[in-house]
């Protein structure tokens, strides 16, 4: 009987050992940290959702031209992008706003890569086709609540705002509202497309999106009598316009530098940037 017993004991011991090993390996896995050092084959680009389209397309073209290189692109918002490049969890941070004073000391180097203008959009059924910048501000601050106050029909205005992570909101707030608070009862939507989608479906709605995303489902208003056309934007007569930025920690080097140069090359500027609805930097002086 005792050899049998011994065998049974051995089997149990084995079972226990295996279970133990399983747990240990899980712990071991849990313990080891992911290496965060810069890689020569992987580039992490994080930030503005506005710049996301440019980054994505550039990534595809760049990866095709440089086999073995992986560019990881994530649209997390400008603030998160700045934070990620500052903390080293990405090599390039993208931002659709200027650095805040608090961020100036982070040692980030700014390279503008495109013009962006923000269009104020309404439902196509809305007869209003232009507003003054002051009127736009009054609407978004919640001081004007009905379209009949700005020459439209008697219709309640439904304000569609962006979330605070949005660089577009930041730019709009600074350029149009001068930093005054938005109407807190306005809907806050976390995506450009959703703003467009909602405005396209609600008669009284008003929102703002990058000109690049305006399509025929919505109507872009003229502001201070200036249409948001390409010419008006590049010659800076259209009042709600800004630059898009790539940020690196210190002067760009290695893969980040090559990728930046690629984005600024005509191959990207004249195709990708345009297709994404933005305007190229051209030969303009910085």
């Amino acid at each position, binding site marked *: *009987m005792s050899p049998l*017993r011994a065998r049974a*004991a051995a089997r*149990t011991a084995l079972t*226990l050992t295996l*279970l133990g090993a399983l747990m240990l390996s899980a712990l071991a896995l849990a313990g080891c940290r992911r290496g965060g050092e810069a890689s020569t084959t992987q580039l992490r680009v994080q930030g503005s959702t506005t710049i996301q389209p440019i980054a994505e397309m550039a990534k595809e073209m760049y990866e095709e031209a440089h086999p073995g290189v992986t560019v990881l692109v994530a649209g*997390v*918002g400008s*603030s*998160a992008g700045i*934070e990620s490049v500052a903390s080293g969890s990405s090599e390039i941070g993208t931002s659709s706003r200027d650095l805040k004073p608090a961020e100036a000391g982070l040692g980030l180097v700014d390279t503008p890569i495109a013009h962006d203008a923000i269009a104020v959009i309404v439902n196509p059924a809305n007869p209003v086709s232009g507003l003054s910048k002051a009127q736009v501000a009054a609407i978004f601050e919640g001081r004007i609540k009905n379209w009949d106050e700005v020459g439209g029909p008697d*219709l*309640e205005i*439904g304000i*569609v705002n962006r*979330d*605070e*992570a949005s660089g577009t909101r930041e730019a709009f707030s600074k350029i149009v509202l001068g930093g005054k*608070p938005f109407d*807190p*009862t*306005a*809907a*806050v*939507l*976390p995506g450009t497309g*959703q703003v467009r989608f*909602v405005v396209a*479906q*609600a*008669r*009284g*709605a008003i929102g703002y999106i990058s000109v690049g995303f305006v399509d025929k489902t919505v109507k872009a208003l003229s502001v201070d009598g200036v249409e948001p056309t390409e010419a008006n934007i590049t010659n800076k007569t259209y009042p709600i316009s800004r630059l898009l930025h790539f940020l690196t920690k210190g002067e760009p080097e290695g893969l980040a530098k090559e990728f930046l140069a690629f984005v600024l090359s005509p191959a990207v500027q004249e195709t990708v940037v345009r297709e994404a609805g933005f305007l190229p930097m051209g030969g303009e002086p910085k």
Partner: protein
Amino acid sequence: MTLRDEPAASTAPRADVADSRGPDAPTLSTISRSTYLKEAALKNLFLVCAFVAVAAVLLIFMFVGYRGWPIFAKTGLAAFLGGLQWQPTAEQPQFGILALIINSLIATLGGLALGAPLAVGTAVFLSEVATPRVREWVRPAVELLAGIPSVVYGLFGLLALRPIIAQASGGLGFGFATAWIVLAVMILPTIAAISEDALRSIPSGIREASYAMGATKWQTIWRVLLPAAKIGIIDAIILGMGRAIGETMAVVMVAGNAKVIPDGIFKPFLTLTTVIVIDMPYASGDHRTALFGVAIVLFLISMAFVAAIRVISRLGGEQS
């Protein structure tokens, strides 16, 4: 009855039979130390596994609490829970979540008011009214409804339901009205399934006794069965409430996320759960801490619901 003439083998002397298990049979073995240790070790291993659940709850409370409590210390509990202003990015940041709490409650109670009667009705249908054939189709449908990911409910709410509400109300379509419908559908299967269990666990003799006294089906349901299943149904509704107040992804798509108590059911609003989704991507510092503070509040609310179910079940157990 056939009796044997003689008991077959018992009286014959057996000493001649070769049998290794005679009086010198092996002695009974005592429990060996290794066996004892092995079984005890296994039992303790299982106990440790079972305790993982307890550890998990404590870990969640500790980690979320650790990350969130500084905001209570900073703003004061009263200001955090009782403040109406959620202005985390203002120059003088304010972290009052009262508006979010109230919005969460309005969204939850409205969803419950719509969903619970529907769910209990469906449960009664499944357990008392439906023929087996119909039941065979409806019950899986309800169960499948429970399995659909909340993000799909959100998608449906945002893209199908919201435009309809927008048309009907003239607004943007975000608001309590839309959220109520989405939440009602989401909690329906939870409440229906548990209520049905409660109804079906009533012994069938009780139904027959009621019918035998000339009661109609409805009288039996209303006067006998629903009261008998009361505790189970209340449990189900509390569970549904818990699910509704903790629901995030479906609500964030239809709520519209304005951080005020809206002045109408077709106006955008922000809740305890959705503020986390909306703010997390850019929150830092105190703002981030405050979001963990919101998570603590949500955690405690959900624990309170579980405790309430315990208490109600215990009271119910004492009644019957």
